[in-house]
């Protein structure tokens, strides 16, 4: 309570301060457009765009039309404003067929100013690349691996030195009146000694065989292991954008991971929850022009084609023959193994990233882990069971603690290595 009231006092002070110092300016507030953009994305973007009418009106130039005081009231609680009989408010409500805008009592004045500042400044045009690099852009020098060149260089040096030595030796021989010897003859003599040495041949055979078998073993055990498998998908979907930049929770789309053995690929109607509003038309190219001429992005349009969404009229096409999206499955376990996502995500409380890697940075999804049995087993050996707060384990947590004298209890210790737990 204390902090809230303190904030309130502070913001009131702040408002007064702003009022005093900005009376003469066109925009009677100081807003941070950067923060505004963030707030806009999380609170407003589902109904508003800057340049286009969506559910609600386009917001560019809204500060020219209405006073900041009115806007603050409207944004905080538009229903209250309408109830107070404000004509402007009622007019806009009627213009949009009585669709109710949510109230945002949690936004501070500064927040609202930030948002309004953003509506004025708009999206900053990206700086065209290839031009001025000095503008704060750090130049990343690619670090290169020179080990190969060094090896080759050293090899060459060695070769030259051997040649020199041979030359010197022959010169010395000539000086002493002996015949010069070719290096090949000497090598042949050495080679002959080696070949005739049974011990050497045996050892060499063993070494070669062992090396070969070792290679063959690793090659063969790699069959069917599809680590880094990165097939081309029907839609160029970027996890980096969705899970990384926009921080959409994994469970939002892969909702069944918590409940079912399958993590589930989201059905198109889940995509539409956002893409009904986000159609990619605002994406700009390098020079700052609209990339798709204001049309929806061709990748997002694939979702519309699948489900039958009419972007023009903003409605689903009736009696549309749905066209399922045929994603290419990346993580393929053999049929003989049973894997359950909910056991790991829900009960084991593992982060998705532990098996799937840094998905939030992947432009294109790939198989991060080996998904081999050894990999599974290893994790079962190392991972502690999440006994805490799970009533299921209540009794035998105590029993096991006693049995293992307080050692850490891994999945392996409660039967996580038994064949029948995964193979049936």
């Amino acid at each position, binding site marked *: 309570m204390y902090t809230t009231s303190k904030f309130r006092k502070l913001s009131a002070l702040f408002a007064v301060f702003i009022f005093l110092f900005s009376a003469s300016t066109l925009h009677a507030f100081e807003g941070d457009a950067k923060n505004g953009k963030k707030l806009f994305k999380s609170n407003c973007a589902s109904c508003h765009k800057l340049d286009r009418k969506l559910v609600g009106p386009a917001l560019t130039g809204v500060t020219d039309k209405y006073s900041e005081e009115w806007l603050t009231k409207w944004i905080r609680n538009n229903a209250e404003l309408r109830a107070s009989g404000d004509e402007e408010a009622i007019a806009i409500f009627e213009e949009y067929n009585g669709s109710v805008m949510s109230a945002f009592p949690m936004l501070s004045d500064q927040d609202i100013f930030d948002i309004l500042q953003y509506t004025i400044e708009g999206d900053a045009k990206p700086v065209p690349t290839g031009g001025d690099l000095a503008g704060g852009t750090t130049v990343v020098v690619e670090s290169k691996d020179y080990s190969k060149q060094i090896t080759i260089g050293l090899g060459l040096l060695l070769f030259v030195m051997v040649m020199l030595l041979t030359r010197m030796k022959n010169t010395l021989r000539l000086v002493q009146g002996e015949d010069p010897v070719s290096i090949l003859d000497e090598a042949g003599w050495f080679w002959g000694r080696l070949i005739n040495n049974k011990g050497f041949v045996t050892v060499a055979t063993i070494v070669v065989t062992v090396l070969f078998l070792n290679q063959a073993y690793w090659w063969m055990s790699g069959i069917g292991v599809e680590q880094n498998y990165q097939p081309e998908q029907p839609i160029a979907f970027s996890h980096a954008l969705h899970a990384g930049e926009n921080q959409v929770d994994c469970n939002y789309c892969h909702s069944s991971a918590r409940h079912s*053995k399958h993590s589930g690929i989201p*059905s*198109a109607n889940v995509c539409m929850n956002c893409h009904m509003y986000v159609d990619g038309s605002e994406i700009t190219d390098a020079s700052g022009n609209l990339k798709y001429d204001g049309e929806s992005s061709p990748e997002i349009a694939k979702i519309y084609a699948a*489900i039958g969404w009419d972007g023009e009229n903003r409605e689903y096409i009736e009696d549309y023959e749905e066209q399922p999206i*045929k994603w290419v499955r990346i993580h393929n376990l053999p049929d003989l193994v049973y894997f359950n996502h909910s056991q790991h995500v829900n009960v084991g409380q593992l982060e998705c990233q532990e098996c799937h890697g840094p998905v939030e940075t992947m432009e294109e999804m790939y198989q991060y882990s080996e998904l081999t049995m050894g990999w599974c087993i290893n994790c079962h050996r190392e991972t502690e069971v999440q006994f805490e707060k799970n009533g*299921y384990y*209540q009794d*035998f947590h105590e029993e096991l603690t006693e049995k293992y004298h307080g050692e850490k209890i891994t999945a392996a210790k409660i039967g996580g290595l038994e*064949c029948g737990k995964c193979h*049936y």
Partner: protein
Amino acid sequence: MTENNKYWRGIEDQSNPELSEKLAQNEFSNEISQADFLGNDELAESSTSRRDFLKFMGFSTAAATLAACEAPIVESIPYVVKPDSLTPGIANYYASSYYDGYDFASVLVKTREGRPIKIEPNNDASYNGATNARVQASVLSLYDGARMHNPMMDGAATSWGEAIAKAQSLLTANSVVLTRTVISPAVKTAISKLGLRHVSVDAVSQSNRADVYEALTGVRALPTVELSKARVVFAVGADFLGDWDGENLNGAYAAARKPGSDMLRHIQAESGLSLSGANADVRIKAKVSEYESVLAHVYNKVANAAGVATVSAPALREDIKLSVEGVANELITAGSGSLVLNGLNSASAEKLAAKTNELLASAAFNTSKLDFTATGSDSDFAALLEDIKSGAVTSVLTLDTNVLHFSTAMASLADKVSLVSIADRLDETASKAVVALPMSHYLEAWSDAAPVSGIYTVGQPTISPLFDSKSAVEIVNTLAGGSESAVDLIKASAASGSASKAWNALLHDGFADVTSVDVVTGTLDMTDVAVSAPLKGLEFYTYTKAGMGAGNNANNPWTYELPDPVTRLSWDNYVVMSAADAVAFGVEVKAQSNGSMNGTTINITVDGATLENVPVWIQPGQTQGSIGLAVGYGRTEAGKVGNNVGVNANELLAPAVNYTEATVVASEAEHGFASVQLAHTMMGRKIVNEINLPTFLSGNAKEWNEKPTFESYKGPLTSFEANLWDDQDHETSHMWNMSIDLNSCTGCGACVVACSLENNVPVVGKDEVRRHRDMHWLRIDRYYSSDMTKEVAEEEGVGAIEKYAKMEVPSESPSVVFQPVMCQHCNHAPCETVCPVGATVHSREGLNHMAYNRCIGTRYCANNCPYKVRRFNWFNYQVNDKFTDVNPSQDDYGRMVLNPDVTVRARGVIEKCSLCIQRIQMGKLEAKKDGRQLTDGEFTTACAQACGSGAIVFGDVNNPKSEVSHLKQEERSYHLLEEVGTQPSIFYQTKVRNRA
């Protein structure tokens, strides 16, 4: 000095030195062809040499290796709009009801990703929520590709509009609607809307019995029985455990027969050994033609005691006279606790039974709560046949009845009528129809039912129709000019009744209570009771088998593969004959060198009609002078599985008639049986521990349930104390055990089918079953008693060899025991120690795990298993051409029934019962997700769930509150072959017979 003596290596050497020389050159003269090795008949004709073979092998190995390097692209296609109620990977259950004119059951349908994959009993149902083998198997019939794919007109596919128009033009005012028993109020309404004469006839007729109650109560129905109120039940030819309305009585029977002083006593008089007869305490062998006189004698005795007029009855055979009199006395003593049941389709027999119950004031016999599931009328049907003959009826609409198969009389008149058939497939009837309208399977259709007084149930679709078919109710309604959809018709029907639940609740539960029909009970008129004289000559009768029933699932491989509980034969019907008759007719059944059984066939002639080359099975317990043949077989238009399996018994005997006189001659042909059990007796071992009630009540369990002990320096030790191995740690977490009560198990086979469904157990077909390569993870062993026992041998001074030879022979009047055997999950498992690759290992939860992908197929484990429960996968049943006709996985539709949580095993591995580990894991996971402890009975194995009599109880013995932990302490409990020291997790409860 040495001499070159020639020594003969044998007499052949002297007589044929050339041959001998040749043999010496060619040591392995008996070449084994690779074709034999590969088991491929086609290769036998090819000239593949060893080198070619190796080349092929080399190439295919290389090809396979290369192919394995490249992973195939797997597509993953999500819903476009996902239904709210559906999460991939999580099963949904829907309540529904099953009725096919023979079986009724309230069921739960398990669906995965929108596919029904399993039928479960609806335990909350107020009437018959149990499932039997046939109901369990019915889910596969949904995926039967032999079903009609679209409406047919004159043998060609057509549209619904045209087919309906044509059908309507064929149906005139004098047309007749011919159905099996209809219990659906909605269908009845639709039929009455047609305004045509309605005749119903059943493939297994109870018509004359229903006539009695129609006269008595004014409602055409059968009485219901409450076994919980009975102390003595006397059933005459009534297989109430096998074919009376599904599993309805099994649960009550098992409950009433819990060992104790008030245990139900069951006496059965019958000709062939039925399931009920096998479970009876006392069994009287009476011919079917003697049933009436048996009932009459009992009635007369009871009537005498009650001072009521008796009926005249022919004298009984001397050898059963005394026993029947004894039964009558017992019934009189039991008074209102007695119950007489009749299974004969005869009004006189039914009246005698009903009147006896009435005189004894039987509390268990209920004529005010009525059963409507078998009300077909033979007399109506006979009248219809006359009308067709005379030309008064020229077109017939058949609804879900394969009348041309079970009625030869109707089949012979088929040309005289235009048929419109509503059927699921182009069966013997629909294939002859002018218009055939495809009826949806019950899992894709809306339906309702009023099976007994006071109960109303609905069936709902769990999948969209696979083919262009419609619900029966909708088709009939459309023919009557209606346009309502099936769901609206059922909704209207539910609303018009007095269902106690709102529509959504009704749909959720699947059943509701309704006001029962008013029954005015009159008095039985005994004046027209005429007891027919027993047949002098050989009598032929028809009966139903546990798997096939009335034959409604005739293209369903599971119903064929399920071995008959009594004969233990699959994929056949056959004449059952007593050993004495077999000798008289020169019939024999012999074991072949490969372990299969072959038998003689006979020609049976009844009234000039002859059925040729019918196989004969010699059945212990069969009454002499009486032979039986199961109905439902001999199909020609059922589909690839059911066509030409067995013979059609109804060709000799119409369903209305139970028995007739027949002449029999042995024929030349030999028949191969698919028998899964060759040893018929226990040879004096304690495999099934069986005692009589007085012994049980004496309470000296140490004596009648003796545990084996081993002498040691510490004194005698039990098999749990005398150990070669270290004990497993089973103290923490769960320890799964299972109790099987042999006293409750009726041997019905529901568990076997449920297990096959749950665990994707392959169907292997007759040829493989003949080689004992059946894949069932759970079998129900059946043992007969023998006249020779160790005690008898000692008394009579019979020598050991003769004793054991005689002990192998079942008695002519045996007592029968059933014993479900699956993997015993030994805690000291012999299989685990011999596996060279560690493919079968023990779990800390008391299970014996089997890792298929580790198994290399040495079969050491199967050899070392004392229970013989490990099955070896000889083929890739799901792709091998040999199994195209029988294995459902080879069909795009049939494959949909597979349980996605269980691996489909590949060739060359051992498989066995896993104690439904997928259910255990799922159950534990649900509890973990909810963060709560497991409750007993929260989940159970497929067999335990399907068991209508509650014989199988599964649970965690480490939970002291669980039922199974109590059962383990029971004095009746014992382990199978405990003396081997395997310490199984499965244990059995001693069977107790209620006799002295």
